[in-house]
């Protein structure tokens, strides 16, 4: 069968199991947009190419399938660099197709030409410039294999226009042949045995659960391991939901804005069992002072993560689910006795941890009378007035931290956010992608006013394509997190952070984009507005929550500081936290 390169590309995407793609056409990709009309793949037309990339990310986050985006050359390719980098940092499987000028024009500074493979080399797991239409099926098959196996990540395929137009003889490869790419899933038994020894003797163990567990679909295995060994679990920003927040062993989120118990339990642990996390600086604070007494077991499918920040005592290369299941098998007694019988006595540690939980819960104060409206109150009301399996999507900043802190995540794949890159504007398009992937679920974006203004135009795409996401803007009229740092570390000298509470008119803007728009100014209005929003299923909804400008995210470990120096904020008893109960 003779096909054009463009037809071969679409057919290859279909063969790869693609059901949905996000994109926007233009000159160099025009040949491929013709067979889009004949394809079984749903195409969601975006308003800006960055939106296509973030939608593909949101889709991938909640479905576990690779997200697919397609845009043209030049400015479209540069516009999708941010999502590529975001996906690279957070290990999200994406396949992005970009148009390119004709082969004969490459290097001539042609209209809408840019060196897309050169620009994206640093932010993709791999990329391809297609030079022969006969290579298209092989390259597409390889791209999906690379994106979804090992440590997942984005792969870009740059497709020159003349290659799209040229003819090829159709085939579909049975397998991929990548001699330089052999990710290791299976774990080394000797390393597992060493890890088991450390777990048996640890008196203050903590499981440091990372996003790799979600990629490996290891939530159930994690729960079995934690329960069997009765070990507390902290869930990083990328791993929220992998272990239920309501579980007695869950300590919640660690890190710069983690809760006191999660931060301090890690800091004072004698064993950290890192499952698919990467000792990110937002978790460790100053790595020289991080968990100084802890031995480290580090499970990661990417061997380069071992020793990158912290040298592990036991490095386990492999798939997180395979590793956790191997640990379970090795720790489970063959005689039917309780696994905990073979472990060190941890009663003192458990009582210390529960003491912290009691003494230093996350807290805020919503004044009676409803004013000013506290952002944490909004998050709690959203949490309590939406289905338990609601998917929550955040942008980056204060609202993201409040969402992570005050939501209760009890199911995996219900939390979508930009962790590593910290991309403002992520929430609206990622929520749209999540809703496309899980139309059966309620999807709420909890966004900030600064973030919303970066990518809000994608709500037009959502209205046009009938994708009923809901957006709650925690509108404090500021670039709030920057303001918080200026207040705390720059003597309240607020430089270029005021955005205005009234411009834009969010309700008017939402309505202009085909959404329902609601404004909320007091605590009393919160629940009725959420109830109204939940009842709308034929279009997106935007609620402009006017929240207290002065509210800050606590606890907080100042950047570069030690996790011992956690600041609890006005609601907490900082002196007790810093000096009193914590054993040294």
């Amino acid at each position, binding site marked *: 069968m003779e096909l054009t390169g463009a037809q071969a590309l679409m057919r290859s995407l279909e063969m790869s199991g693609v059901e949905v793609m996000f994109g926007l056409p233009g000159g160099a990709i025009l040949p491929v947009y013709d067979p889009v009309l004949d394809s079984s793949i749903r195409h969601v037309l975006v308003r800006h190419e960055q939106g296509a990339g973030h939608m593909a990310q949101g889709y991938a986050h909640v479905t576990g399938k690779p997200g697919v985006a397609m845009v043209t050359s030049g400015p479209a390719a540069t516009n999708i660099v941010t999502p590529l980098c975001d996906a690279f940092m957070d290990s999200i499987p994406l396949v992005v197709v970009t148009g390119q000028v004709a082969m004969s024009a490459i290097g001539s500074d042609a209209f809408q030409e840019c060196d897309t493979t050169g620009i994206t080399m640093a932010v993709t*797991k791999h990329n391809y410039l297609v030079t022969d239409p006969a290579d298209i099926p092989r390259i597409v098959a390889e791209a999906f294999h690379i994106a979804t196996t090992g440590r997942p990540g984005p792969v870009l395929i740059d497709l020159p226009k003349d290659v799209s137009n040229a003819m090829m003889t159709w085939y579909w490869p049975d397998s991929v042949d990548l*001699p330089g790419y052999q990710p290791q899933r299976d774990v080394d038994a000797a390393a597992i045995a060493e890890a088991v020894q450390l777990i048996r003797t640890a008196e203050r163990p903590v499981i440091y659960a990372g996003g790799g567990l979600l990629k490996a679909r290891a939530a159930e295995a994690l729960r079995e391991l934690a329960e069997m060994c009765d070990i507390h679990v902290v869930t990083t920003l990328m791993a929220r939901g992998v272990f239920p927040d309501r579980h007695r062993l869950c300590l919640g989120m660690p890190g710069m804005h983690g809760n006191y118990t999660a931060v301090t339990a890690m800091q004072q642990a004698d064993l950290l069992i890192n499952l698919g996390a990467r000792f990110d600086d937002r978790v460790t604070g100053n790595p020289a002072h991080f968990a100084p007494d802890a031995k480290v077991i580090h499970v990661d499918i990417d061997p380069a993560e071992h020793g990158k920040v912290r040298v592990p005592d036991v490095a386990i290369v492999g798939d997180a689910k395979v590793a956790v299941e191997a640990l379970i098998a090795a720790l489970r007694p063959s005689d039917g006795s309780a696994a905990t019988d073979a472990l060190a006595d941890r009663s003192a540690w458990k009582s210390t941890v529960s003491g912290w939980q009691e003494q230093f819960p996350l807290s805020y104060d919503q004044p009676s009378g409803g004013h000013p409206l506290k952002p944490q109150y909004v998050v709690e009301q959203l949490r309590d007035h939406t289905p338990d399996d609601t998917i929550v999507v955040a942008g980056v900043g204060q609202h993201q931290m409040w969402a992570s802190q005050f939501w209760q995540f009890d199911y995996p794949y219900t939390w979508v956010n930009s962790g590593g890159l910290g991309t403002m504007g992520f929430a609206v398009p990622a929520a749209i992608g999540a809703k496309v992937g899980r139309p059966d679920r309620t999807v709420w974006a909890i966004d900030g006013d600064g973030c919303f203004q970066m990518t809000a135009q994608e709500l037009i795409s959502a209205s046009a394509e009938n994708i009923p996401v809901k957006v709650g803007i925690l509108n404090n009229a500021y670039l709030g997190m920057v303001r918080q740092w200026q207040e705390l570390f720059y003597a309240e000298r607020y430089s270029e952070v005021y955005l205005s509470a009234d411009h834009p008119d969010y309700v008017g803007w939402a309505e202009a984009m085909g959404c329902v728009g609601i404004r909320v100014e007091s605590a009393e209005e919160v629940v009725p507005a959420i109830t109204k929003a939940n009842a709308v299923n034929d279009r997106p909804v935007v609620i402009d929550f006017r929240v207290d400008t002065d509210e800050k995210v606590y606890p907080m470990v100042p950047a570069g500081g030690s996790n011992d120096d956690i600041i609890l904020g006005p609601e907490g008893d900082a002196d007790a936290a810093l000096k009193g109960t914590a054993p040294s």
Partner: protein
Amino acid sequence: MSGAQGTNLSPEETAVVSLPQEPDLHIFAAIVENKFGVLARIAGLFSRRGFNIFSLAVAPTADPEYSRITIVVDVHNTDVNQIAKQLDKLVNVINISELHPSDSLERELMLARVGAVDLEAVTDVISEYGGEVLDQADGEAIVSVSAHPDRLDRCERQLRPFGLHVLQRTGRIALRALDADEPAVGMTA
């Protein structure tokens, strides 16, 4: 990359070389797919991870599908394992191994245009290193010397008084010695 061919190597130079190394230079040998952009991927990785390339030599292997790259890295402030692991993550890198100087044979080729009013004196210097005069005219000569890079450094210093008008060195290449243990799995680097 063919500099070692056609030159007469002294017995000393063909022995396993264990001359003192600068302490922060490490040699990596990588077999890579001979594809568009591979060198850019490697150079880009070094730059964005803050690894410092001291020298780099690339050419196809006996199988033209692959190239062999010898990279000398200044590992000051860098974890050597990180360099190898990050390089190994590149899809086009088939394998990577570190070559320890004590287990390896190293060579580098130098071409130099030198002042040669006294051609005999120049010839005396380079013949000590198995070099040869390739061209001469108007009181200048182009010489070629292939040797262990440390010996090449000495040769270069000895040529300097004659006037080193143009100097081109290739960067080192290295092979694991025949009696050294093979550390890498897969294709032999």
